[in-house]
């Protein structure tokens, strides 16, 4: 049984806006019986304000598909079409307090149905390319169709490449065998042989900076280069500047980092958005820590504070 959040259960057992809207002037159909899930979104849009007065759904699918459809209708009611189009699948998942990785496709279906309904209202044509294959990477919800297409498009030849392009295989690594199998098949179709990366190379790639004991074992030297001693103010500004330089990258993935305080060698931060639940949060932190060590020219420890810890700090 999946571990569904209480909000998912609530929207599955007691869905909002179920059924078709009477006199709807926008309809979005995605998915199919063959896909295993489908959603028909019906909207009543005010022609003058382009505001969504009513939204209804009909869903063929699992519990999270029904919950995602219910969540979508709740999210878009009262918005203008342009405002509604800014809602993406992550917003639907967030509204439901998260979905299991294997079920993220349900929220994608919601986003696609919304786009289809708006296109229908505006008289535009939209191609439903809703197609999903077997799930390969459970950590990042990447299916085999995505992996195959990426391998072909970019002529990839290693698991590391696939991870770089799709994120698949970037966390627990249990899907590496499946990715290698896809690489074997795709390369074989081109008359090439798949050559697995040597184990030593993989180990080096997988090594990360250990935050707790500051061991640095990545194969390349992370020993900080000695720099002129900084004043406390210079040091603080440099930490801020370094973090500011990295934030846009995290924000692109719907995450963020915030500096809480600097306590000597200890730099305390909080993670925001997608970073809080990301399987690669440890890698993100390792990268941040390395950047800080390089910038400051000294060994520092990066700590992530929980909300409670932040609250306690605020009370002092």
């Amino acid at each position: 049984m999946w571990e569904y959040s209480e909000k998912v259960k609530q929207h599955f057992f007691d869905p909002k806006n179920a059924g078709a809207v009477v006199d709807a002037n926008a309809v979005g159909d995605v998915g199919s019986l063959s896909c295993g899930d489908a959603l028909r979104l019906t909207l009543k849009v005010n022609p003058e304000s382009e505001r969504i007065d009513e939204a209804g759904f009909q869903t063929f699918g699992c519990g999270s598909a029904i919950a995602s459809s219910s969540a979508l209708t709740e999210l878009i009611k009262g918005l203008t079409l342009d405002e509604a189009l800014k809602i993406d699948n992550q917003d639907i998942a967030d509204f439901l307090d998260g979905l299991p990785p294997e079920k993220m496709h349900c929220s994608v279906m919601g986003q696609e149905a919304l786009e289809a309904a708006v296109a229908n209202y505006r008289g535009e044509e939209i191609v439903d390319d809703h197609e999903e294959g077997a799930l390969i990477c459970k950590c990042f919800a990447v299916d085999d169709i995505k992996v195959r297409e990426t391998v072909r498009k970019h002529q990839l030849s290693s698991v590391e490449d696939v991870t770089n392009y799709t994120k698949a295989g970037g966390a627990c690594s249990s899907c590496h065998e499946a990715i290698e199998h896809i690489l074997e098949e795709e390369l074989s179709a081109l008359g090439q042989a798949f050559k697995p990366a040597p184990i030593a190379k993989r180990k080096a790639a997988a090594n990360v900076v250990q935050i707790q004991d500051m061991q640095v074992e990545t194969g390349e030297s992370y020993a900080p280069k000695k720099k002129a001693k900084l004043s406390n103010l210079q040091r603080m500004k440099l930490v801020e500047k370094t973090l500011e330089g990295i934030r846009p990258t995290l924000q692109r993935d719907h995450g963020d980092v915030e500096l809480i305080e600097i306590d000597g060698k200890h730099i305390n931060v909080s993670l925001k958005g997608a970073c809080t639940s990301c399987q690669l949060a440890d890698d993100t932190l390792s990268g941040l820590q390395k950047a800080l060590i390089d910038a400051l020219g000294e060994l520092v420890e990066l700590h992530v504070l929980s909300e409670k810890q932040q609250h306690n700090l605020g009370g002092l």
Partner: protein
Amino acid sequence: MNDIYMDNNATTMVAPEVLECMLPFFCEQYGNASSMHSFGNKVGMALREARQQLQTLLGAEHDSEVIFTSCGTESDSTAILSALRAQPDRKEIITTEVEHPAILNLCNNLELQGYTVHYLKVDKQGCLDLKAYKSLLSERVALVSVMWANNETGNVYPVETMAAMAEAANVMFHTDAVQAAGKLPINLANSSIHMLSLSGHKLHAPKGIGVLYLKRGTRFRPLLRGGHQERGRRAGTENTASIVALGKAAELALAHMAYENSVVSKLRDKLEQGILQAVPNCFVTGNTLKRLPNTTSIAFEFIEGEALLLLLNKQGIAASSGSACTSGSLEPSHVMKAMGIPLTAAHGTLRFSLSRYNTEEEVDRVIAAVPGIVQRLRSLSPYWSEGVQSGDAEFAPIYA
């Protein structure tokens, strides 16, 4: 009101008598069966008794043909890999499209290693074509592996006939009897079956114990090498408490087999008929004439299995779905696909698998609960009203 468990093909409750008999092996009789002292000797005797209980359940000629393993999957893997290693000149395997993943995924992997695997197709009722099977038997084949009974539909396959056909062609035969053992009479001494797998937790023993039956004289290569346990055919200290438990469970299964095939079978039929009569647009998948006494698989049009399971679970009813959505894939189960169940219904299959612990009152409660749940989900489905009203072939398939 107690919750209702009708997912016994997934796993079973440990029978109280079984639990009772295994407990002393954790704290009183904890010796290593291989040890020479009295602690070990007592346990060794208990293992011998358990082996004989399994011998009786399986109708094996010798108790030494029973090898204890950790589970059905280990038994399956041992059987297949042993057959390949023992006959290195034979590079082909015959199996079916409807096997358990323990067989299918191993076979898929062996294909990557250069072996040829023939997957026998099934018809709409899940039955095999024995002529097609016969045509594949040759001296290139190292092993035939066919399940005795299917876990989703309960279909029973003619493994004794197929084993005899394999023997005539000088080919080794294995059967995954994980679902059949304890539910159907088995007499291996009079069969041509060389290897058989069973799993304890499907017959009211605990999880983590299985058996590989190996007919005397069959060429064999162990999967686990190490100590001399199980006559060197499966190294590793014996899981004594679970082995003793499995022995007791085997004894009980034999004692209750008639009950399973009469009372439980009638309860299953009542449940099936009750649902079919109360719910439109649903049908039973598989061969209803030749199946396990405890299993029914019902396909409901235009809805999806996981949603059904969640709503049933809310009413305290545990069943299973043939929809692979529960495993993270959107594909219907490979068994439903192999039988060609229309997509309108393949996603909405529900499996009820009963045991001797289920009651008529429970069956009545399930019959009362299912129609409302199906109706509720259909009212949410974009296909239900369209499919029924349009009469479109896509939405109103004719079932064979």
